[in-house]
């Protein structure tokens, strides 16, 4: 009998990974240096997307949205700049963003009240994580999942057909803890940002190799397009068979089981749409970089690799909507690399102990550093209209917890990076007057061309000034 699990469950450590990342980056760096990066775009795409108003900038380039989640909130006094306006001084935690400050806004006064305890008691981490992009109250249950459709999926439904992938879900969490998650909430709430329906979380991918292969095909550079084509051919031949099987099975099953088969059928349909989109839009240009190895041993490299791939996905217009969970809320990751061996969550309940607060804000700072390097990458890539990818994107970086110590969910730490193709007023710190974060998401959906969305989550309106 195989005891393979022994070796693969602890497989995070892959000695090749860091070497491979350097290769991968060098490759990406070379791509970035190319003047005509538009060559990576399928030729037909520009025409296709300019025709409609969906997810397109005024200059005809693709408009993208990404939602990045960092865990356990941030130490407020180290996060918030002193004075709002364009002339603000970056706070200690946000210092790494100095070089991109013209391309972002720091938004205060956004709340996630659906994460507050109400009558549900403990479980602020599960709620912070599960409500951040859904904006609805979660059903407190270990097995009976009830969340809401998340904003990225609302967007994907409308604009997903424009790209080979309607959306991309990424995570830097490779493992799930066994045992019970946060205070009676299913682990699904605490580890998923994106929800395709109130009952179906969009499980995210954590392995850089698998994301890359999914986007560009398996195999060495040069052979990937062929491998994608082959895969589609094979998939098509069996989709009919399994579709019949699923429908017959659904008729046989108890009504309580039908939801499971619905999920299966939704998956089959999504795949059919993907195959269709690939035929209409053509295959992506092979980035010609080596395929990244699995999950790097160092957390920092893992994050950066995911950011690289996200950059590449936007660059090649493989998708225009993405989510990335940097760590689940309540993460107790230890940061020995920066001299903080204690667990993040443990420390976040600092009770105003200065040393602990300093350590937590150092962890906050560490996450912002990774964000800054991602934004710089996006800023270096020329888009089809001559602007940068960053200019043509809307990147939300935030947490569903404001102050991890108090488990508060008002005045969330949120950065909105990118100019949304010129539709966002960047280069400032702006304070909203305590409105739902859903309002921001609704305003982003407007820019994505979803004009008819009356409301989202707990929205009370749009952000008038963003």
């Amino acid at each position, binding site marked *: *009998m195989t005891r393979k699990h022994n070796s693969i469950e*602890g497989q995070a450590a892959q000695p090749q990974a860091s070497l491979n990342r350097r290769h991968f980056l060098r490759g990406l760096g070379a791509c970035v240096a190319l003047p005509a990066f538009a060559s990576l775009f399928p030729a037909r795409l520009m025409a296709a997307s300019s025709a409609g108003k969906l997810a397109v900038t005024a200059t005809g380039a693709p408009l993208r949205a990404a939602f990045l989640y960092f865990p356990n909130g941030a130490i407020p006094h180290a996060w918030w700049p002193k004075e709002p306006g364009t002339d603000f001084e970056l706070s200690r935690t946000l210092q790494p963003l100095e070089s991109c400050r013209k391309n972002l806004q720091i938004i205060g006064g956004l709340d996630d009240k659906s994460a507050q305890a109400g009558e549900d008691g403990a479980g602020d981490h599960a709620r912070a994580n599960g409500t951040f992009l859904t904006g609805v109250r979660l059903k407190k249950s270990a*097995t009976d999942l009830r969340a809401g459709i998340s904003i990225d999926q609302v967007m994907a439904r409308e604009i997903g057909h424009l790209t080979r992938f309607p959306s991309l879900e990424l995570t830097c969490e490779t493992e799930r803890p066994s045992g019970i998650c946060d205070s009676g909430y299913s682990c699904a709430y605490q580890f998923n940002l994106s929800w395709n329906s109130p009952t179906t979380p969009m*499980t995210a991918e954590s392995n850089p190799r698998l994301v890359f292969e999914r986007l560009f095909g398996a195999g060495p550079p040069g052979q990937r397009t062929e491998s994608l084509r082959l*895969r589609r051919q094979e998939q098509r031949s069996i989709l009919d068979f399994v579709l019949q099987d699923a429908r017959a*099975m659904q008729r046989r099953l*108890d009504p309580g089981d039908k939801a499971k088969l619905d999920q299966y059928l939704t998956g089959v349909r999504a795949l059919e749409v993907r195959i269709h989109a690939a035929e209409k839009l053509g295959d992506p240009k092979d980035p010609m970089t080596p395929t990244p190895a699995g999950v790097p041993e160092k957390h920092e490299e893992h994050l950066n690799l995911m950011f690289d791939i996200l950059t590449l996905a936007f660059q090649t217009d493989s998708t225009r909507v993405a989510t990335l969970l940097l760590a689940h809320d309540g993460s107790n990751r230890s940061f020995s690399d920066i001299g903080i061996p*204690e667990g993040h969550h443990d420390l976040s309940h600092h009770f105003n102990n200065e040393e602990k607060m300093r350590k937590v804000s150092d962890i906050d700072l560490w996450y912002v550093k990774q964000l800054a390097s991602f934004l710089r990458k996006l800023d270096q890539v020329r888009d089809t209209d001559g602007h940068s990818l960053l200019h043509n994107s809307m990147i939300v970086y935030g947490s569903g917890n404001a102050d991890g110590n108090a488990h508060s969910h008002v005045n969330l730490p949120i950065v909105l990076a990118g100019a949304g193709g010129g539709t966002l007023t960047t280069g400032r710190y702006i304070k909203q007057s305590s409105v739902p974060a859903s309002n921001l998401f609704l305003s982003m959906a407007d820019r994505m061309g979803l004009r008819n969305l009356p409301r989202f989550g707990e929205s009370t309106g749009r952000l008038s000034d963003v």
Partner: protein
Amino acid sequence: MSFRVHLQAAARLFAATVKPVWGAQAFGPRSLLAVLALLAGSGRVAADSAPGSAEFRAQIRPILETYCFDCHGDGAHKGNVAFDELKTDQAILGNPELWWKAMKNLRAGMMPPAKKPRPSPEQEQAIAQWIKSAVFRVDPRNPDPGRVTVRRLNRVEYHNTIRDLMGIDYDTQTEFPPDDTGFGFDTIADVLTLPPMLLEKYLDAADKIVAQAVPEKKEGAKPKVYARFFPRDVPAGSKARRAYARAILGDFARKAFRRPVDEKTVNRLAALAEEIYEKPGKTVELGISQAMVAVLSSPRFLFREETTEEKGSDPGYPLVDEYSLASRLSYFLWSTTPDEELMRLAAEGQLRRNLPAQMERMLKDKRSKDFVRNFTGQWLRARDVENIQIDSRAVLARERGADPEMEKLRRRYRDLEEKGNDQLSKEEKQEKDDIAGTFFKRFGRPLRPSLSNELRKDMRAETEDVFGYVLHEDRSLLELIDSDYTFLNERLAHQYGITNVTGDEMRRVTLPEDSPRGGVLTEGTVLVVTSNPTRTSPVKRGLFILDSILGTPPPPPPANIPPLEDAAKGLTNDTPTLRETLAAHRANALCASCHNRMDPLGLAMENFNALGVWRAQEFKQPIAAAGTLLTGESFSDFTQLKHILAQKHAEDFYRTLTEKMLTYALGRGLDYYDVETVDQIVSRIEKSNGRASALLNGIVDSAAFQKCRQPSSHPAKLATLTENKS
């Protein structure tokens, strides 16, 4: 017209409306009764309509009045429970959740609290019996088996199933995302969702697996595994070929779907194969293998579909058919697909009749190691030990006590590091190197115990081997709490301070008399996974014992309660021990009610640090492990506590283990109506003096495992699944 007539009419109407979806929405006779009780309660017709409430008033309430009303009656309503407010039939009988909680607390000795008078064992028995019969409406001869949603294979089961079906070791831990869990297990049907990305992965996996497993016959020699999939040569002629493809695919689909396959499916598969092999240059084998990809992508492979036996079933709760039973058994005891023997017995209708022999065979089979691995991996969280982050330097620093000098150096080093190497002056660079050197000298000694990957695996192996030993040797389950042996190799023995164990392989070791080890709670896995990255967590450990051993987890903390370290703020001591910090925390009445239960248990384990190593002191102060449980028993160290748990709380442990394993085996959370099933298994264990076999057989023989609620689908539809056997 009397109210009673209305009631009858309403009942008829209700039954008529509900019948078509009987079972599906958890409407059983009980719900009907609850509705009737509601109707009765809302009218003014009195109590004698429900005998259960009459019994309550006459026999149960007086006991509660004596022992419970101090806190839950006469104006007091601690925990929002006031028994004297239960006046109507509906209030008394219509809240099974309340009585379920009351029963758990009463049985576990949590209520009434220590130092308060307790009802006699006979009175306790009477209360439990009343709850079961009057509130839960349990029929011990025909208990409700509950409802399990159709279950997707999780990634461990998928891996093993492919291994046995295809002979391929497909790395699902890497290729598939982690499964969501419920109640601590990854077998729970309701949370085994199927997002679109996973479906894509299943199709991909099917393709890769078949490509890797199923050989194409090349010129000349046949590949070694050829006969596994193609037991005879491909015949000539299109008719013969079709028959050949049908035979192979029919048999393959039967194995993959874990039950006979209808003609129509075989035809569709054969047609799929033919479409491919009729193309020029394509072999029959290639066509067949493509059809196999379809089989492995089908929901019939990915989900475990169940049907019921047509004959010999109790009304309302039919037996599942023998193919379903074969799968329930194999996924429970092997985490994989049924083998040919189980399938043969199911086909002959002989599986139920041969259950004891099959159980014995299955437990002897090496595949039962997968059960041990998956169950202990989750019940005791042994899976987590391989990845959990523990900073051994920080852990050991606590034992040595604070070192302000080193702390200063560490801070200085970090500041220099933050500046970046290219910004440093020559002197600063030198200083940085010097600090690194000092640190290495101080902490870099090879003797420093740390959690290497090997050691983590050893710990997990110990947990599995101990459990496997109890299971396979049919030992007493209490040895899981308290025993004079464990499984060790040299590395792990060294970590535990035990000598005379040499070599890499794990073996059973009889422990020295004065050894604190023995039992799952002193295993490295449990000690490590219940710790924080830099220290032990008595709270997590106490919670672990309450939840995983005694089955009485406290409710989650109220929102916005700052945890433990915060309580240390008021302490004058700079480096308070965890015991002192926790004591400060318990001073708050709100915290005390739960921490009084968790802390003594967790603090008793303080002699084991976050690396699972024995220690005598923390912050240079001796560790005091003595304490008193909320149930009244005092102990001087953890070894004594283990004796108490094994002797005085054996029944609690049997019940908890039964509940955990039943949850794992059934793939659903337990509900109040499962109490009777659990009670029956527990009494079986007690009668056998705690034997492991009583637990396993008890689960497999239970109604919940053998039966299901009446499916709402028409029997005709179900029959199509099996009527045209190929």
